[in-house]
C-alpha cells in the first residue's frame, strides 16, 4: 500500500495545485514533495532488505492480457525512490528564488514527473513499466518546450523523438517477450521464466538496450543530451540528469540483465567497449568545453558510461557500484546544475572565461560547489568514490585492460572539474562577477543537504550497500547460471 501511496501522492499533489494561487503553489508543491520524501524514509526505516517484495500492492488491471498494477519495493527500488523523493523537493526548492512563468503548470508537471519516475522504479509489471516510462517523458517534454531556453523547440523534439524511438523498440521487445511467457503475463516473474534461443535473446537485448542506452545516454546514442541539458531550464535539467537518466540504468539492472541473461553475456563486450569509449570521448570533449553547463553535460556522459560498464561487468561489485553511483551521480549532478543555475542567475552567462574570482565574493557558494565537485571527482569519503571504486573494481574483474581505460575517468574527471572550478571560482573577479552575491537562504537550503548527503553517504555507505545487496545478488543469480 505504501508503494501505491508513493505513486499516488505526487499525482494528487499535482492535481491539488490547481486550486492554489500565487505563492502557495510552489509552497504546496514543496510540501507535497517533502511528505513524499518522508514517506520514502518511513518505508526505509522498517525495511528488511533481504525481502525482495515489500509494501507490495497488486491489482489486476487488464487481466485478460496478464497486465496488473503491481508495485512493490525491493532494496534497489527503494534506493531509487529515495533518490527521486530526495531530489524532487530540492528541485522545487531550487526554483524558489526564480520566476517561472505559469507556475501552476510548472509545478504540476514536476510532481507528475515525480509520480511517473517513482512508478518506473517500483513497478513489477513490464507493461506498467513501459507506461510509467513513457509517462515520465511527457512532463519533461513540456518542461523542456515551454520553459526551455534558446532553440527549445528543435532541441526538445530531437530529445523527445530520440528517446521515444528507443522506447518504441523497447515496447516491441516487451510485447515479444510477453508473448513468449508461458502464462501470457507481463509480470516480471513471468519474464524471468522466459526461455529464448541465444539469437533471439540477442536481438531482444539490443532492442531493450538501445532504449535504455538512449536514456542513459551511452555513447554513441548521446547527442540529444548536451543540447537538451544546456537548453533546458534548471529544474528540467535536474530532473533529466538527476533522476531520469537513472531510469535507463535501473532498466538495465531490472529489466535487461535478468530477462535476457544470455543476450547480455553475449553482447557485454560491445556494450562495455562502447561505454569505455564514451568515458574517454566525453571526458576529452568536456575538457575543451568553454561553456559550464555543456561541460557538466559531457561529464555526465562520462560518468554514466562508467556505470554502464559496471553493470555489464556482471559482478557484484559492478552492480553495487552502479547502484551507489546512481545515487551519487543523481545527487551530485543536481547540485552541479544548480551551481550552474546560480552562476547563470548572477552572471547571465555560462561561459567560464567570463567568470572568475567568485570565491572571494561568495565563500559559501564556493565551498559548497567544491564539496559537490569532490563528490563528482570521486574523492574518497564522498559519495562518488564509493560508487566509482566499486564500479572500477567490477570492470576490472571483467577486463583489466578496460578497467585501465575506464580508470582514466579518475584523471580526466579531475582535469575538467578542477579546470571549471578554477575558471569560475578562483582568480580575480571579472566584469560579470564583480557584484556576485553569496547564496540566499533558499539556495543554501538546496546545496547544504546535497553536500551533507555527499559526505554522509561517502563516509558511511554501508546501510545503502546493504540495502541493495539482496537485489544485486538476485539480479546476478540470473546471469550466473
Amino acid at each position, binding site marked *: 500500500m505504501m508503494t501505491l501511496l508513493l505513486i499516488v501522492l505526487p499525482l494528487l499533489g499535482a492535481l491539488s495545485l490547481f486550486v492554489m494561487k500565487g505563492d502557495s503553489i510552489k509552497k504546496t508543491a514543496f510540501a507535497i514533495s517533502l511528505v513524499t520524501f518522508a514517506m520514502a524514509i518511513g518505508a526505509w526505516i522498517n525495511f528488511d532488505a533481504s525481502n525482495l517484495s515489500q509494501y507490495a500492492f497488486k491489482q489486476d488491471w487488464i487481466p485478460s492480457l496478464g497486465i496488473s498494477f503491481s508495485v512493490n519495493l525491493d532494496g534497489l527500488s527503494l534506493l531509487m525512490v529515495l533518490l527521486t523523493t530526495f531530489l524532487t523537493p530540492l528541485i522545487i526548492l531550487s526554483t524558489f528564488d526564480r520566476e517561472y512563468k505559469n507556475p501552476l503548470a510548472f509545478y504540476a508537471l514536476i510532481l507528475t514527473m515525480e509520480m511517473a519516475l517513482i512508478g518506473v522504479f517500483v513497478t513489477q509489471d513490464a507493461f506498467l513499466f513501459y507506461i510509467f516510462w513513457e509517462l515520465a517523458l511527457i512532463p519533461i517534454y513540456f518542461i523542456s518546450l515551454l520553459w526551455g531556453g534558446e532553440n527549445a523547440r528543435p532541441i526538445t*523534439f*530531437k530529445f523527445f*523523438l*530520440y528517446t521515444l524511438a528507443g522506447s518504441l523498440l523497447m515496447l516491441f521487445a516487451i510485447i515479444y517477450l510477453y508473448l513468449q511467457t508461458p502464462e501470457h503475463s507481463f509480470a516480471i516473474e513471468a519474464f524471468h521464466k522466459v526461455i529464448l534461443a541465444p539469437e533471439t535473446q540477442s536481438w531482444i537485448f539490443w532492442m531493450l538496450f538501445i532504449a535504455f542506452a538512449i536514456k542513459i545516454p551511452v555513447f*554513441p546514442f*548521446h*547527442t*540529444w543530451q548536451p543540447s537538451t541539458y544546456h537548453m533546458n531550464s534548471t529544474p528540467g535539467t535536474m530532473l533529466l540528469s538527476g533522476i531520469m537518466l537513472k531510469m535507463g540504468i535501473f532498466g538495465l539492472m531490472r529489466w535487461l540483465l535478468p530477462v535476457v541473461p544470455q543476450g547480455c553475456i553475449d553482447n557485454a563486450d560491445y556494450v562495455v567497449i562502447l561505454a569505455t569509449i564514451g568515458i574517454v*570521448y566525453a571526458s*576529452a*570533449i*568536456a*575538457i*575543451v*568545453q568553454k561553456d559550464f553547463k555543456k561541460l557538466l553535460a559531457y561529464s555526465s556522459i562520462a560518468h554514466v558510461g562508467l556505470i554502464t560498464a559496471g553493470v555489464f561487468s556482471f559482478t*557484484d*561489485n559492478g552492480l*553495487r557500484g552502479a547502484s551507489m553511483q546512481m545515487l551519487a551521480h543523481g545527487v551530485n549532478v543536481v547540485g552541479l546544475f544548480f551551481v550552474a543555475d546560480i552562476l547563470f542567475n548572477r552572471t547571465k552567462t555560462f561561459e567560464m572565461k567570463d567568470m572568475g*574570482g567568485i*570565491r*572571494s565574493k561568495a565563500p559559501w557558494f564556493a565551498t559548497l560547489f567544491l564539496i559537490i565537485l*569532490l563528490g563528482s571527482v570521486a*574523492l*574518497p*569519503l564522498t559519495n562518488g*568514490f*564509493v560508487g566509482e*571504486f*566499486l564500479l*572500477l*573494481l567490477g570492470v*576490472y*574483474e571483467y577486463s*583489466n585492460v578496460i*578497467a*585501465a581505460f575506464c*580508470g*582514466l575517468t*579518475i*584523471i580526466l574527471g*579531475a*582535469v575538467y572539474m*578542477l*579546470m571549471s572550478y*578554477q575558471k569560475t*571560482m*578562483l*582568480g*580575480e573577479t571579472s566584469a560579470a562577477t564583480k557584484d556576485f552575491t553569496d547564496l540566499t537562504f533558499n539556495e543554501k537550503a538546496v546545496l547544504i543537504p546535497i553536500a551533507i548527503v555527499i559526505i554522509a553517504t561517502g563516509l*558511511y*555507505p*554501508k546501510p545503502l*550497500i*546493504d540495502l541493495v*545487496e539482496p537485489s544485486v545478488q538476485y539480479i546476478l543469480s540470473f546471469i550466473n547460471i
Partner: protein
Amino acid sequence: MNLALLIPVLPLIGFIINGLFGKNLSKSSVGLIGSGAILGAFICTVVVFVSFVSGGSAATTVKAFDWLVIGDTTLSFSFFVDQLSLIMMSLVTGVGFLIHVYSVGYMHDDENYNRFFAYLNLFVFFMLLLVMGDNYLVLFTGWEGVGFCSYLLIGFWYKTPDYNDAAKKAFIMNRIGDLGFILGLFVMFSEFGSLQFTEVFADAAQYSEGNPAILGITILLFIGATGKSAQLPLFTWLPDAMAGPTPVSALIHAATMVTAGIYLIVRSHILFNLAPETMCIIAWVGAITALVAATIAVVQNDIKKVLAYSTVSQLGMIFIALGVGAYTSSMFHLLTHAFFKALLFLGAGSVIHAMSGEQDIRKMGGLKKALPLTHITFVIGCIAIAGIPPFSGFFSKDEMLAHIFNDSPALWVVASATSALTAFYMFRLYFLTFSNGFRGTDHQKHHLHESPSSMTTPLVVLAVLAAFGGVLGLPLELFGLEHGHFLQNFLGLEDSSFDLSHETEIFLMLGAVALAVASWLLAKRIYKEKQTLPAENVTGIQKLFVGKYFLDEVYEKVIIRPFQLLGNALYIFIEERVIDPVVNAFGTLSVKKGNFVKQLQQGNTGFYIFGIVAGVVLILVANLIWFR
C-alpha cells in the same frame, strides 16, 4: 587503545570548527584550536606509543565502523597501530604541530587565516588516515585526501592564476599516480580477495619471488608512489607546489605527504620483496630522479624552489634505498629528512617573511645579522642535509649509501654524486642568502627583522631534532648492545641482507663526508669568497638544468596539447560532424521524404486513377509472381 581513534578525529574536529565557524572566531582562538587539535593528537599518539611499547609491541587494529562491501567481504574503516604507523603518526602530529605553531605567526596577516588552519587540520586528518589505515582502501582514502588538501593549500592564494595552475597540476599529477594505485588495489583484491594489510601479507607469504601478479601489484603501487612522492616522471608538480604558503611546503611538500610513497612501499615491503624487478625499477627511477633534481637545484635562484628540488632529490635517494631493500634506512632518512627539510623550509619562510615575500636569493644576502636565530637553525639544517657528522643527515644518509653500495656500486655512484651536489647547492643557497652584503631594495633592508617567537620556536625545536635525530640510528653496537640500531630493532622490517665489511663501511663513510665537505668548501669559495652571483644568461648544460630538463615543455607538447587537440577534434569532427548529423539526418530525411511523398498528391483526378490502376496491376503481378 581506543585512544587511537581520537588521533585522527581531533584534527577533524579542528577542521570542522575552524572551517564552519572560523570566520566568527578571533585569530588567536583559531590558531589555538588549529594547533591545539594537533597537539592533542600528538599527545594521544605519545600515549598510544607508550602503551604500545609497554604492551609488548603487539600490532593492534582499532575498528571505527564498517565501510564498504566489496566482493564477499566487508571492508571496515579501521586503524592499524604498529611500529611503522606509530612512527609516522608521531612524525605527522609532531612536525605537524610545530608547523601549526609556526603558521600562527607566519599567516598572521592573512585574511583567510581560519581557512588556512582548517585546511591544515584537514590535511593532518587525512595524513593520519593514510598512515593509520589498516587496509589499503583507508590508506588510499588518506592518500587522495592529502592530495586534495595539497591542492587546496597550494592554491591557497587563489587569486593568482599561476598558483591555481600549480595546485591543479599537483592534484592531477597525483591522480595519475592514483590511477596506478587503484589499479594495483584491484589486482591485489582479485589476487588476495582482501585489501586488509594483515590478510594480504599473510597470503603473500605463500607466493614465490617473481610472481607476475605480485609484480603487477608492486609496479602499480609504485606508480602511485611516484605521483605522491614526486618521482620521475611525475615530479614536476612539486617545485610548482611551492606556490603555497611556506608552512604548507614544509609540512606537506617536505615532511609528510611526499613521504607517503615511501610509507606505502615500506608498508608493503613484503610484497615488494617478492618482486625484484620492481625493486630494480624503483632504485633506478629513484636514482635518476635524485640526480636530475639535484642538478636542477644547483641552478635555481628561488629559495623555495631550491628546497623543493632538494626534496625531490632526497626522496629519490630514499627510493634508491627502497629499491635495494634498505627499508629501515629509508625510514630513518625519511625521519631525519622530515626534520631538517621542515626546518629548512620554515627557515626559508622566516627569510621570506623578513624579506616581505621576496624569494629570489640573488636579491638577498647578508641576512646573518638581521636574522640570527633563523641563521643558526638554517646552518644546522644545511649541515644536516649535507650529511656532515654528527648531525642527523649524516647517519641516515650514510646508512643508505652503505646499503646501496652493497647492492649496486653503480647506484652508489649516482647516489654519492647526488649527495655531493646536495651539499653544494645547499651551501650555495646558504651563502647567497646569509653571507656578504644585502642585495635587496632599501625598503626591504629597512624592514628586515627576526620573526616572532611563534615562528622561531618551532625552528629551534626542529633544529634540535635535525641535529640529534641521528641518535635513532646510532648503531647499538657502539653501546655494547646487540646488533643493529634502535630504529631497526623497533621497526623489525625485513631488510635485504647486508654484508659489507666494517672497513668498507668506514671507507664509504669517510668518502661521503669528504665529498660533502669538499662541496661545502667549493660553494664557499664560489659564493662567499668570490661573491659570484648566478648569471642571468646561462650557457651549455646549465641551460638544461635551468630549463628543468624541459620536462614541463615535453609534457605540454606530448600529452596536454595532443589531448586538448584530441578533445577539440572529437568535438568538432566526430561529435558535430558525424554523430550528431547522423542522428539529425533521420529528422531531415524524414521531412524531405514527407515533402516528396506529399508531391504524389497532385490534385489531379486522372493521376489518382493511374495510382489505383497501378496499385491493382502491382497487386496482381505480385500475386502472379509469388503464388503462381
